[in-house]
Structures are given as C-alpha cells and as structure tokens.
C-alpha cells in the first residue's frame, strides 16, 4: 500500500531501488516486519546511557590572507630613465654625440623632435610629465629603437667589434643559427631590454622572435646592404624587443 501510494504520489520520482540509496534499499528489501525486527534487536542492544566525550578545543580557524592593497597596471618608465638607458646602449655617449651618430639614412632627426613626444615635462611652459602613453610616444620610441638597433648592429656585429666592447649584441654571432643557438643569443638581448632571462618569459616567446629572425633574414638573403641578412635580422629582433611593452613599463 505504501509502495503504491509512494508510486502514485510521486509517479515521476525514482524508487529507492532505482535511485540506489543504501540504507533505504536495505529496509525496502526486508519489508515492514523485518525492519521492525532489526530495529528491536539494535534497540535492545543499545547501552543505557551514552558517555559524553571529553571536551576538546575547537580546531583553530583557518586564516586566509587577503591582499587588499590596491593594484595597478605596470607604470610607465620615466622618460629620463629611458633616455639614460638609451644613451648607455649607445655606448655612454653624450646626447648630441648620439644624435650625430644616429643620424644618417634618415633614421634620426634631432632630440628636439623627440623629447616632448617621449613625455618629458617642459617646466618653462608648464607642460606636465605624461603619465600615460600615446600613439606619438609609441611611434617615437619605435623610431628611436630602430635607430639604436641598426647603429648597434653596425657597430657590434658588422664592425667585428671585440666582444668586450659591444654595447648591445654582446655575443658571438653565428650565421643562420639553429633554435638553440638563437635562444642562447636572444637571452642576452632579452635580459638587456626586458631585465630577465627568456626562460621565465611565456614559453613561445623565443619561438616567435626566432620566426621574426628567420623571416627578416630570408627577406634580405642575397640582397646587397649595409648589413648582412643575419645582422639585419638581429637588428630587427633588437628593435622588436626595445619596442616591447615590457621594455617601456616597470
């Protein structure tokens, strides 16, 4: 009867058997008399009184530290820092000497054209320091980076400068490097411009840059130019690193 009522009252529901519930299934299979018998047996066997357990301290609460300090995106490198680094990468030259050296082939105009675009303040006219990048600034950084890398490739690689005197490409170049040879040399540039070894960068970074290297080298293969295809490819890798967001933020 109960079974029928159960089925009628919950026609869509599963039976205990169907649902597979353990203890309920057990009593279901015994039927009502059996269930009563089992209850009596266990009830008579129960002790007269349950002994209270010894009081125990509550387990210590789990403390989860939450960092509530405000977070921001990386800040822009002050333009003075960029300029100081830039002059250093150019071999520690004075700004006007860098300008003279970087000029040529229309790669660099004059500092006058770049300083304001880099976000430097101009106290004379109360122009404040730029705290956010803009397209002109990015373009300027790109142009400066290109001038640096091409001149550095001419000096360090094409000029066969001794290793100790190289300012950017402080490694022994090899023609048409393989993956490992590229990665070893790329790590030098990665540390210089981004400040950490490439092994800690996203895993595909070296591969991406190697693809760039091969593409540029292939594009310049067999062509006459001031740099060899490999040197041009290193200059391209250098330029891409100088313009990498991580190089301009900290």
């Amino acid at each position, binding site marked *: 009867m109960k079974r029928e009522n159960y089925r009628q009252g919950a026609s869509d529901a599963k039976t205990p058997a169907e649902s597979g519930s353990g203890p309920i299934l057990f009593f279901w299979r015994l039927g009502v008399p059996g269930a009563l018998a089992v209850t009596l047996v266990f009830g008579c066997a129960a002790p007269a009184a349950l002994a209270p357990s010894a009081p125990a301290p509550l387990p210590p609460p789990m403390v989860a530290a939450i*960092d*509530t*300090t*405000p*977070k*921001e*995106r*990386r*800040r*822009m*490198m*002050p*333009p*003075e*820092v960029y*300029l*100081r*680094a830039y*002059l*250093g990468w150019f071999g520690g030259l*004075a*700004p*006007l000497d860098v*300008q003279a050296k970087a000029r040529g082939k229309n790669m660099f105009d*004059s*500092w*006058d054209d770049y*300083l304001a675009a880099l976000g*430097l*303040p*101009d*106290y*004379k*006219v*109360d122009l*404040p*320091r730029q*705290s956010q990048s803009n397209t002109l600034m990015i373009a300027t950084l790109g142009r400066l980076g290109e001038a640096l890398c091409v001149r550095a490739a001419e000096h360090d690689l094409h000029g066969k400068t001794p290793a100790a005197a190289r300012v950017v490409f*402080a490694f022994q170049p090899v023609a048409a490097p393989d993956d490992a040879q590229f990665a070893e040399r790329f790590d*030098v540039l990665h*540390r*210089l*411009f981004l*400040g*950490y*070894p490439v092994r*800690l960068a996203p895993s595909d970074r070296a591969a991406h840059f190697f693809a760039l290297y091969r593409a540029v080298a292939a594009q310049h293969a067999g062509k006459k130019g001031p740099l060899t295809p490999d040197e041009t490819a290193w200059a391209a890798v250098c330029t891409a690193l100088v313009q990498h967001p991580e190089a301009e933020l*900290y």
Partner: protein
Amino acid sequence: MPRVQITVRRSIAALCLLALAAVARDGAADRELADYRYFRALSVDLLGRPPTAGELAALDKPDFDLNAWIDTHLAGPAYASRLASIYLDALRLEVGPSFQFVPNPLVLRRETVLGPDGAPIYVYFRRGQRRVDPATDGDFCLTHDETGLSFPPNAPSLGFPIAVSQEVLDAKTTLVKPWWLYGDYRAALPSDRISKDWSTRFPSFVPVPQLLVEPDGKTPTTAVRVCKEEAQTADTGNVYVSGRPAPKKGEPPPAGRLTQPPGDSGFAKATKGRAVSCLSGTGFQSSVQCGCGIGLERCMPASGPQFESAAFQLPTHTPLGLAFDASPQPASTWEKLWWSEEAKRFLLKIIVDDRDFREVLTSRATEVNGPLAQFYRFLAGATCCGPAADAGYAQPEGVVDPGAVPAALVPEDTATWLPIADRGPHAAGILTMPIFLVKYGSRRARAHVLYNAFLCKDFVADSVKLAPSDEPDLTKRAGCSACHQTLEPMAAFFTRVAESDWTWLPSQLFPASGCAKAPSSGLCKQVYDPAFHMLRGAYASPAHVEEGPPGLAKDIVDAPEFAPCVVENVAQSLLGRQLEPEDDAWKTQLVKTFVDGGYRMRTLVRAIVTSPRYRAGNDVRR
C-alpha cells in the same frame, strides 16, 4: 602502504636532485620572474636606468644581498634626481620667454659703425646710460653727425654710414677686455683669452661666434670697444641733475636724436649730488658715473642693438642635466638657466646628503657657481628700486646678501659650485631663490604653489554666487572668502619681496602701514595699497609681513599636513598611483618612519621600496 612509502621517497629524491641541479647551475639562485621585476623596478627608481647585464648576473648569484644593494644605491645621484623630480614636477622651476629679464642697466647692446679706416667696427653701449652731453644722454654715445646713422631703440641703425674719426672714437669710447673673453679679466693685463680648453674648464659657457670675432667675421676679438661711460668701474656715483628744461611740445630732439634725452626725476632733484650705488637701477638712471664695472662684469653682452640679441649657445632641453640641443640665446636665457640650476642643485644636495627635508623651505644655505655669483654680486640690484627710490631706497637689499657670495668665482665658471652657508636673514630655502620668485611672480601665486606642493591641499571655491562687491578685503568678500581667508595671510609673508622680483622692501624705509597722507604719489600707488594704506598684500596679516618668507617656511613645516604630504608625494610617485583609503594605515606608518627618522628621505624611500606594496603593487596582470 609500502608502495606509498616508496613513491614518497622517490619524489623526495627527485626534488633533492632538482634542487641540487638548480644550485649547481653556475651557482645561480633560483630567481622567479617577480624577483627580476622587483629588481628592475628598484634599478629604475634608484639607479635611474634598467639593470645592466652585469647587475643581472650579480642578482643571479645566491649570495646576492638585495638589502645591501638598496642601501648602496639610496645615496647616488640618480636616486636623488628621481626624488628631486617629484618636487620639480610640482614646482616647475624654469621660466620661458614669457618672463623677460632685460633690464637696461645690464644689457650691453652693440651698434656697428664705420671706423676711421672705413671698415665696420662694433661699439657696445647701454640704452638709458646717463651722459652729460644732451646729444647722447640715455642713448648711443655717438651722434648722427659723427656716424651718419640714427639709432632707433631696439632696432638696426638707419642712414648712410660715414667713417667715425679717430679723435671722436678716442674721446667717446675705450677698449676693454671683457669678462666673456678673458677668464682673468680682473688682472691688470688679462691674458687668459677664451680658447678650446674653456669647454672643459667652463662647460656650457659658449658665447655665440658673433661675440668672438670682429665684423669681418675672421679677426678674433681681443678687446671690445665700449662707450666711455659704460666702461666706468666705480661702485658708487653721484646723483646727476641735468637742469635741462623739459622739451616743449613738438620740439625736435637735439643733435639728430630720435628720442628726447631723459629729464630729471623727482628722486634726482631731491638727492642731487648724493652718492648712489652703481649696482642699482636707480644708480644707472641717475648718475653719469655708473658703468659696467671691471671687465664689464656688471653687464651682459648682446650681439646686436635689438631688445634681445643672441649672446650664448645654450640648450633648451636638459632632462638629465645634459645638453640635448644648443642654439643661440640671449643673455637673459643664460641667467634664467642658472637660476633654475640653483634650485635643482639645492634640492639634489638635500637628498644626496640625506639632510632634513624641511630645509627645502627653511635653509638659509645654497650653492652658487660663477654665473650665479655674478648675478648675486653685480646684477640682482639692477631691478631696484623704481618708485621706491622716492622713499630714499637706492641701495638695493636683496634676499641674498651679496657679501656672502664667494668673490673668487669668475662669471664664466659654470663648473665650480661653492657653498654659501648663510644667504642672510631674509632667506628661506627655495622660497627666496630668484627662480621661485619670478616663476611665481605674485604673492598669491607663491603662497598657492607652496600650499599645494608641501601641504597637498588646494583651494576649491565654494558654491556662493558671485555678486558685484566693492569690498576690498577678499577674506570677507562673498564668494572669495572661502579661499582667500587662507590664501591672503599666507601671501602676506611675501609682502616685503617685490612681485616678479627679488628686491626686499626694508621695514626702516617701508613701514607696513603708510601713505595715508599722500596716496596718489607714485610710491604710494605702486608699493602701498590705497584701500588699506598698507604695503600691498599686507592687509590680511600685518604680523606675517615682518616674519617674511622664513615665517611661512616655518608655518608650513610645522603644519601637521607637511610630513603626510611628503609621504604622499613620494609614495605616489614610486608606486605610480594615487594612494587609496586602503593605504591609510601604511601611510600613517610611513609618516611615523619619516618623522622619527628626522625627516630624511632615505629612511622614507627605503621603507617604501622594501614594502610589499611597492614590490607587488603594479602587477595587476600577474
């Protein structure tokens, strides 16, 4: 159970092997990306550049002591420059062409005439120079009849030049070996003429080529021809009264002049024959005996007759203290450059030496180089005294005592900086430096920028509707009072410093209250405020008038907002973000560190850059 034990043992062994391998790899420490980023941020903020390959290699070593590295670099010039930029950005202590510093007493303009042999020669003169001869008084010392030329003010000469006779040249001009050509111009026979080695001895001192050669463009200039009155060297002259009657309407100027000669001022008539300082503008205007001093050291050269002609090759951008360009600039730009450098150097020294930061406002010390020493000793008085001369003020009293300035520095010595331990009783940190006083020309502007930069507060107008009012007291006028109740008493501290100038108005000659009897005189109109019969700017707080800028400096550094404001400025700059309410406890802790550490920046910056907020605060994408 045994199977589990074996697995755990194998894992531990593998971990040990991995650790050993990591250590064995050239002894490198197992740095994480965050370590490198933190180190790069420290390098950017403390060294002023990203880390080099060598510095990264040092970081890779397991025994690298980052704390020691931080301590080492909290003393360097790049760190000081980084910190100073926080306050330089706030104060913007440079002035551009909008501020003109071209006083006639200082500028030796140059005319070109034909010499006795018919070849062009240069003759230097000061416009406004007093001379006895009415044909040339206040004008060029050679007349139209002598040169064939007319000399309009601030413009090239007009007419058909004729050769000036040797007799006239000898009578009216003389040859001088000037300071801009000779390092030893004070010697009896100067011989240290400008040469190639000056670029290392006196870097940045580069006169334009026109000042170094004769009109033929080839012959090096060894001496300059100057009108005789300008070549005088006396420290004082006697007040000159020409006694000439004022010109009648329509009467042409004498001797082919284009302008009338100057008349006798009230000051001249009242003090005829009395001694007057040749270092003051009043002396220049009222004595025929005041000239440019030995080697023309009281004057600045110009390469033409124009209002401002080129004198020096100067950079317009010096972001790292280095010249990023150079172009011909007038002498006033030379002065402005060094005023600005004085403030920058003052700020840097306080940070590099880790001195009490309150000295930025309170210190009476400074450092000067040759151009600044020349300015304080010989040039600063040129803007004094205008209408104040009517009150008998003809011996300028600056905010810097010229007697405290080292006399050994020659004007071209840009490289040697010597200390002035005490600039005098009116001095107060940057508040009394020329660059601050001209950048913020008005008393209110000066008070406002200090309120903003050193107390981190600003004036925000209330919402009262402005109505027409004849209430002269802005601390009471509706719509103005909300801000001016605070601003006016602060501005009153600058009452005795002339606006857009550094001239001090001494209390003996200028009592705070005055001019009630003759409010329409020039002095009363310009120096005193007719609405209050008090010195201009004094009405809101007569007590502050006598305290002067040192009083304001003391008020600011004693204010409870001062230390939190310094902490806020520095922390925000290093974190690259505004401090939020969540930072309040940290900020309070930093304020305590800063104050307990004697208001020294190194303690504060160390606390900031070693905090988790600095280390991880800018890593939202991590």
